[in-house]
């Protein structure tokens, strides 16, 4: 297949990095193309004379490739051969082609050639000013979702894969003395000078090979092609064992304390799917003592009419395609520049054997070196002029050129047409300051180079090269060498001299500060002059935003969407600010910059999550009995990080049927639950009792050895945040239990008070949640069952409710607590976790004759609700005091020490009338279970908005009571016993209920205290 724009024969560039002996076939928008090994998608498409790569976001205008690197705004592609390997927002300029690569335009539904948005953009374009979406679509707001769907589909922002990603990603922690960001002339020189001191150096570059801008230019270093110097330098670095070289690795985020993330694309440049056993992408998490930013600069395009017609490109990008890829993107070039540097593009084009129509220089004169070269090549230079407008449809047919006055703000003569198919422009360079801003730095404007450079915010960061506003190659190399040596010395190494390659010194004329080319019509009437290609922001749009009163650049940005795209305004920001500044009558530094944030270029979720996917995404905790639960068909529920059995369905049972069966079995025979997830904290020391007195609301001074007590914990605000039973094992030894979800917080709570307030108390804490398994048997047959397996005397006269005994159960040492969360006679058997399964199975073996029934959290919830026992976090919400819960019995105000939260229980707000209080609810219709969260009103006929007095916190069907039961918090509820309340539902019905005590079953507690 022919590649009409591939330079061949004598005109081919000797420094080209593509290998013409290795043709590669790939497809773009379902059409096959051929390129060569080393081509990016962009260079291969240009070689094949593909002009249109997408449609613009708002107006649907055809768009072509503008740049050759990370700053590309238009050629944003969807990549991937299969559903599972789809990757959105790939810049065609940064992705190498490989055999069989498939990619598509993202903005161009249904086709890039002719599409709906194209028509919409043409017809309505002039009616879509900035703020258009806000102004038009936000009202009526209901329709926004519909509009958004349509617009997004039309505009296209890429899509995420719908199938599971089969590739493997990983993260790696790295430590370095010096991290050098960017492997161009500056980065390589800095790395060499740092590495030669023995410092640990990481050199990372986002491209597929080192060399940076040297790959795009024809400079000689030390009198030889620059590639020789690159090869020698990289060889030296690669063989040094204190150096790590990373290519295809973008330093994307600069975080606090010199922590940087590098996104390395390991197999993306060669494969759709990583080969077996290989990692697709790797995230390096680097902690560097010193960071050298050698990030280079992005060229700025000039803003003029119709500057988005495919064929309008950055001058430096044109040079890159010619020199690096042997691709010349057109036949006739018209170059517009405000500086000497861009002249090289005309020379490169000329040397490729194609026609340079003219160089349009906005200045009245240029530097001697470039003028001589142009004259020698026979290229016409037109001074003090500018391209005011490009013409053409899907490609450029000609351009209108007019003379400029010396300010560059007005045209000073008549328009002349030049035929051309490519327009390259340059208004100078923007140092890539992005990383220097990530932790809070604000770039400084330098008038002499018309650009922002990094400030000194980061003390352990040095910017060098074009990234710091240095452009002549000789200066870049010299400065970078010093930066490398300086950074190494700052890490304690001893560099005494620097070394760097020599480049030619050229006579350079100053560039002209010009961003926006005037048109013979006012900006608002002129053809669109694009500033941000990706989001269709025009010069007229920015001027209108200022006119409408937006003065801060951050507001202008948000109103116009300038710099909002996936390119984050790499091309557009400075031009946009310059246009806004001019309209505001301010200077660029007065107008200021917007803030750059991580990441520099988009990062895949795969690289962020690394190996933390599927079962490793979030920690899952299993009790020692987990396999038994799985084997016995448990349905699981997440409780914090724990996987707890929810219920154990038998056969075709529904959850409701299973729970009813489990509840009745426990009430009538014996049920068993794995309560191992309860938080358990071992507390020891002579001051343990005093400590408990301070953190619990009730008193612990007189709790005898072998007894257990229920306690409430409050924050200093007086609100209940955890509860549990704490037992006295010996005078200096207690075991505290907490809620399953609150264990870590409670442990922390104890530590902070002990370490920061009461270090004089001799007390020690240890989390023993995982060490002890808790097997809880409940029901009238529980004692019979346990009696068959233990040497502990279960005589109810001596082993009473709330007693603790130690002994042997099923042959292993155990602590048995006679405590109950079901209201039944209940024993919590604690054994070492690795014995748990054996004990559990013994209990089933002996319990079979009592029809022992395993139950899960749902049955536990019903059983405890029948008894009115609260679950902290379900029946409380951080605004409930013990008194609100009607649990004043668990508060001992008489304790000597003012326990945590005590003072708050007497605050004006906590003692006021009409606080929400916990009560029970019985629905009038016993079969109706009110949904949890139902809002409660006193007058069902009140007009909306109704006065809500509380809500339902827990609601279940109780099998043993054969009716629905609920707990609720209601304003002044404790004084409203017997009152009717109402719960209006979303479907228009209203549930009626009566306020009652939350203790629905066995109010006297005869069952749990049974003898």
């Amino acid at each position, binding site marked *: 297949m022919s590649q009409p724009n591939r330079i061949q024969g004598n005109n081919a560039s000797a420094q080209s990095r593509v290998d013409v002996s290795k043709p590669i076939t790939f497809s773009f928008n379902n059409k096959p193309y051929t390129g060569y090994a080393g081509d990016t998608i962009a260079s291969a498409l240009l070689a094949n004379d593909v002009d249109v790569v997408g449609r613009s976001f708002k107006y649907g205008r055809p768009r072509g490739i503008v740049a050759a690197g990370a700053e590309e705004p238009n050629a944003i592609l969807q990549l991937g051969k299969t559903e599972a390997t789809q990757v959105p927002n790939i810049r065609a300029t940064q992705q190498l082609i490989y055999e069989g690569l498939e990619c598509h335009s993202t903005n161009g539904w249904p086709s890039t050639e002719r599409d709906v948005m194209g028509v919409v953009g043409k017809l309505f374009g002039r009616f879509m000013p900035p703020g258009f979406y806000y102004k038009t679509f936000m009202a009526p707001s209901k329709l926004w979702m519909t509009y958004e769907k349509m617009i997004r589909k039309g505009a296209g922002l890429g899509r995420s894969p719908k199938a599971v990603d089969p590739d493997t990603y990983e993260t790696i922690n790295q430590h370095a003395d010096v991290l050098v960001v960017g492997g161009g002339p500056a980065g390589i020189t800095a790395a060499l000078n740092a590495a030669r001191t023995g410092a640990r150096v990481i050199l990372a570059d986002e491209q597929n090979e080192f060399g940076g801008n040297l790959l795009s230019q024809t400079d000689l270093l030390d009198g030889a092609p620059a590639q020789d110097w690159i090869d020698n330098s990289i060889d030296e670095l690669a063989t040094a064992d204190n150096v790590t070289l990373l290519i295809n690795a973008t330093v994307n985020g600069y975080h606090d*304390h010199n922590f940087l993330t590098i996104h390395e694309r390991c197999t993306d440049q060669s494969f759709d799917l990583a080969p077996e056993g290989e990692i697709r992408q790797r995230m390096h998490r680097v902690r560097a003592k010193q960071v050298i930013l050698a990030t280079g600069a992005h060229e700025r395009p000039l803003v003029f009419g119709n500057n988005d017609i495919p064929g309008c490109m950055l001058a430096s990008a044109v040079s890159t395609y010619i020199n690096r890829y042997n691709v010349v993107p057109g036949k006739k070039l018209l170059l517009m520049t405000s500086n000497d540097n861009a002249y090289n593009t005309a020379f490169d084009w000329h040397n490729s054997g194609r026609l340079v129509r003219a160089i349009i220089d906005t200045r009245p004169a240029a530097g001697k070196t470039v003028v001589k070269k142009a004259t020698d090549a026979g290229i016409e230079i037109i001074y003090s002029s500018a391209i005011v407008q490009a013409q053409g449809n899907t490609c450029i047919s000609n351009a209108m050129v007019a003379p400029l006055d010396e300010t560059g703000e007005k045209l000073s003569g008549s328009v002349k047409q030049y035929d051309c198919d490519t327009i390259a422009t340059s208004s100078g360079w923007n140092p890539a300051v992005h990383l220097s801003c990530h932790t809070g730095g604000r770039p400084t404007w330098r008038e002499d180079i018309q650009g922002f450079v990094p400030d000194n915010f980061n003390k352990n960061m040095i910017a060098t090269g074009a990234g710091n506003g240095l452009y002549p190659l000789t200066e870049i190399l010299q400065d970078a060498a010093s930066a490398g040596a300086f950074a190494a010395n700052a890490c304690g190494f001893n560099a005494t001299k620097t070394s760097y390659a020599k480049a030619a010194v050229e006579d350079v004329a100053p560039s002209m500060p010009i961003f926006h080319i005037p048109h013979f019509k006012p900006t608002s009437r002129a053809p669109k002059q694009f500033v941000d290609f990706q989001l269709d922001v025009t010069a007229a749009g920015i001027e209108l935003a200022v006119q409408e009163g937006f003065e801060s650049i951050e507001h202008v940005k948000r109103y116009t969407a300038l710099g909002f795209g996936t390119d984050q305004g790499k091309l557009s920001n400075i031009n946009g600010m310059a246009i806004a500044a001019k309209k505001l009558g301010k200077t660029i530094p007065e107008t200021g910059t917007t803030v750059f944030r991580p990441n520099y270029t988009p990062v895949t979720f795969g690289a962020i999550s690394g190996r933390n996917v599927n079962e490793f995404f979030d920690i899952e905790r299993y009790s020692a009995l987990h396999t038994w639960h799985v084997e016995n068909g448990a349905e699981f529920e997440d409780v914090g990080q724990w996987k707890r059995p929810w219920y154990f369905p038998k056969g075709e049972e529904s959850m409701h049927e299973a729970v009813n069966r489990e509840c009745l079995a426990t009430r009538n025979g014996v049920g068993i639950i794995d309560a191992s997830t309860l938080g358990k904290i071992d507390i020891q020391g002579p001051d343990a009792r005093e400590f408990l007195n301070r953190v619990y609301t009730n008193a612990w001074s007189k709790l005898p050895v072998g007894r257990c007590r229920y306690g409430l914990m409050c924050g200093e605000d007086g609100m209940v945040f955890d509860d549990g039973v704490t037992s006295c094992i010996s005078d200096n030894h207690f075991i505290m239990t907490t809620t399953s979800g609150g264990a870590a917080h409670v442990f922390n709570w104890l530590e902070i008070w002990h*370490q920061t307030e009461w270090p004089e108390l001799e007390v020690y804490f240890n989390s023993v949640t995982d060490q002890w398994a808790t097997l809880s048997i409940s029901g009238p047959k529980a004692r019979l069952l346990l009696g068959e397996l233990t040497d502990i005397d279960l005589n109810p006269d001596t082993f009473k409710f709330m007693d603790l005994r130690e002994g042997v159960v099923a042959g292993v040492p155990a602590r048995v607590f006679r405590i109950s969360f079901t209201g039944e006679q209940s024993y919590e058997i604690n054994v070492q976790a690795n014995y748990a399964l054996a004990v559990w199975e013994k209990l089933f073996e002996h319990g079979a004759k009592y029809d022992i029934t395993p139950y899960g959290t749902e049955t536990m919830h019903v059983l405890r609700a029948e008894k009115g026992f609260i679950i902290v976090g379900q029946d409380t919400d951080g605004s409930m005091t013990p008194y609100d819960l009607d649990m004043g019995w668990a508060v001992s105000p008489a304790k000597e020490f003012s326990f945590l939260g005590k003072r708050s229980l007497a605050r004006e707000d906590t003692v006021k009338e009409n606080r929400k209080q916990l009560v029970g609810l019985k629905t009038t219709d016993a079969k109706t279970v009110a949904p949890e969260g139902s809002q409660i009103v006193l007058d069902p006929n009140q007009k909306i908005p109704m006065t809500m007095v509380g809500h339902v916190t827990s609601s279940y069907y109780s099998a043993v009571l054969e009716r629905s039961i609920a707990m609720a918090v209601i304003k002044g509820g404790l004084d409203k016993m017997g009152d009717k309340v109402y719960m209006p539902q979303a479907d228009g019905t209203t549930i009626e209920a009566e306020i009652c005590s939350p203790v629905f079953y066995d109010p006297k507690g005869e069952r749990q205290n049974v003898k």
Partner: protein
Amino acid sequence: MFLIYCPYCEEERAEEEFHASGEAHIVRPTDPESLSDEAWGDYVFFRKNPRGNHHELWQHTTGCRKFFYMTRDTATYEIKEIYKVGEQPKVATAPAVPNKYDQFSSEQAVKK
């Protein structure tokens, strides 16, 4: 991500190992019952939020679990000093920044 020196482990470790526990040196009143609601409320609810140096309480959560203090610049995130519980800071906190809305609210009060 911060790099934090644990004064007990005597090592610099990544922030992931630590947990920030808010403002440091909040001393619990010895006799809470003698305080007015307002004074007690100040202790329980009100915290400084300076721009600049701030004394903070941190815990080496996945390490030694010890609490320690840090003076940190809330604007630059620079850690100025680390010291143990029981010790006093050498670096003073930033002066309180007057809340620009204070003035506004008093103006409103006058209007009423």
